[in-house]
């Protein structure tokens, strides 16, 4: 059917050398998933966001979780590729284009997630017409678009440089700017949450640096998975020694991230009072599964990273995936956790718009996770990721992302 015909057509194009039929099937499948996502989004807009699990007391959900997560992935990827360049480190050049492209894709997806979360996407233009520069969301929009543009320029400059145009110095400058925006983008995203005094769980100064460390964890992990996969697929080669360097880096970042976590929990719990509530919620409350998956997953990643014997390719992939999943869990904890502790939870009228499960009392609603996504949200999220895969694969197929001589 359409997949096969598309794949067949794709197979004829010159760039199809790499991956051949496989990548075409992948592209076709991704396209189908994307279309399904678009249809679901249309349904969401016409039937209303009521079809999601979000409600007045848990007013953000999987979309914003995914947004946070993807901003992290993207920033991490870019940092990983630009740091060696910025500091003139050798050996990583080969991965930088792949990493940047991955970042670009993630950024596009992150923006996509904000858009699908909006009630009135057709009013997006107002962001530019009536911008309230005091709003962290506005900052994020500015920083994200800058970042997207910077990443594209950086990719373009890298490709140019590798094709013998442009100077290494210019590339370095661009990479430094990209690095700064990457750090910024993550901090600003953190501030969307961290500047809100309304949610005890979010309102911590640590949130920005912590977002950056988490970004590094999952960014490096993603790049690791991608390059190991691409290496296997024969798309590129990378010395194992460099992979190991990255794995160690991953281990370090994981430790930093866990360290931040410990700092935060301790600061919350130590004074007693409502901070203990936050800790309880994570350690033993409704969010415990996400907490423990993150903590244990990241710990395993760290072990794999630091025990030389364990640094085999399959285990590296496992460790990286664990880190990615762990950071996703962290995002879930953060988002849902923010709503899980309401400031005012006295009994009052409950309507179908109050909270996801409005059938019992408020306390019942908070007994489990206050928010859980509905099928349409999973569908749309899948659609967005499908679109990401599509972009990624199209990039691999049509952009010259393979390392060249000059990459190194």
């Amino acid at each position, binding site marked *: 059917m359409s997949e096969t015909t598309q794949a067949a057509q794709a197979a004829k194009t010159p760039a199809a050398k790499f991956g051949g039929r496989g990548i075409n099937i992948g592209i076709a499948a991704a396209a189908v998933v994307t279309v399904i996502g678009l249809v679901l989004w249309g349904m969401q807009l016409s039937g209303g966001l009521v079809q999601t699990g979000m409600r007045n007391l848990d007013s953000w959900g999987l979309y914003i979780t995914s947004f946070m997560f993807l901003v992290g992935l993207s920033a991490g990827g870019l940092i990983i590729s630009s740091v060696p360049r910025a500091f003139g480190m050798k050996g990583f050049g080969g991965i930088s284009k792949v990493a940047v492209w991955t970042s670009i894709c993630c950024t596009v997806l992150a923006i996509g997630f904000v858009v699908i979360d909006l009630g009135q996407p057709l*009013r997006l233009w107002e962001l530019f017409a009536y911008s309230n520069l005091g709003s962290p969301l506005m900052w994020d929009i500015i920083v994200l678009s800058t970042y997207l543009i910077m990443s594209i320029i950086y990719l373009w400059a890298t490709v140019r440089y590798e094709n013998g145009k442009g100077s290494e110095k210019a590339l370095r400058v661009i990479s430094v700017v990209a690095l700064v925006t990457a750090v910024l983008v993550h901090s600003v995203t953190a501030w969307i949450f961290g500047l809100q005094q309304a949610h005890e769980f979010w309102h911590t100064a640590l949130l920005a640096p912590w977002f950056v460390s988490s970004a590094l964890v999952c960014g490096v992990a993603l790049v690791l998975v991608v390059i190991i996969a691409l290496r296997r697929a024969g798309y590129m080669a990378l010395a194992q020694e460099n992979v190991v360097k990255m794995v160690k880096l991953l281990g370090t970042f994981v430790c930093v991230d866990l360290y931040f976590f410990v700092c935060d929990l301790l600061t919350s719990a130590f004074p007693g009072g409502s901070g203990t509530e936050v800790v309880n919620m994570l350690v033993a409350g409704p969010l415990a599964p996400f907490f423990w998956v993150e903590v244990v997953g990241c710990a395993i990643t760290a072990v794999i990273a630091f025990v030389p014997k364990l640094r085999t390719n399959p285990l590296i992939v496992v460790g990286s995936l664990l880190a990615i999943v762990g950071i996703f869990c962290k995002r879930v904890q953060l988002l849902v956790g923010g709503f899980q502790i309401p400031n005012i939870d*006295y009994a009052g009228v409950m309507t179908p718009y109050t909270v996801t499960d409005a059938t019992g009392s408020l306390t019942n609603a908070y007994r489990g996770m206050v928010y859980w996504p509905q099928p349409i949200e999973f569908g749309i999220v899948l659609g967005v990721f499908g679109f990401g895969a599509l972009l990624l694969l199209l990039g691999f197929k049509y952009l010259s992302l393979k390392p060249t001589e000059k990459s190194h």
Partner: protein
Amino acid sequence: MATQRLGMIVDTKRCVGCSTCAMMCKSENNEPEGIWWNRVLTIGGEHLTTPSGTYPNLTMENLTVSCQHCNNPACVKVCPVGATYKDEETGVVRQDYDKCIGCRMCMSACPYTGVRSFNWEEPKYPIGIDTGDADVPKHQKHVVEKCTMCWHRLAKGLQPACIEVCPGRARHFGDFNDPDSEVSRLIREREHMQLLPEMGTNPSVYYLV
């Protein structure tokens, strides 16, 4: 032009949690099914009008909560497009449905859980008529709304709708910037509180305790 700080007082000693103010708000503002800008909460057990404690050592109080029209509103700061904003002349925190992009930043920024509500679908009116005042703006799908301090009434020189209907005579309205107003007098004379003062929002709704 002199600035006012219009606000409300609820006397918790006189409030019996009857929801009359909530119902007037609902009718006056044509709030769709499932939407309550003004809600009665029970400080007590897990359900409305249930106490805390163990029989027979019990306590129960009522709190009516709607937008607090904060002097330093958390919601206004975060709105990317200025769809929620503070009217400088009156201090009323307003909401522009036509502008709202439905991002719900304001909902998560507001510390007063539940005072803002989002129209998660096309507003529903099972009785097929628009109730309340003709000058209330039409409700829209996928935008955030909340207590407007009955802006349409203020514009006509009237008090908000919820004030005078209170069977307990527990609600008062006025300008806190006017030292001679009833509300200023009440908070001079009576013990009172604001909700979540540590949030730094400085609400213009006071509760007499």
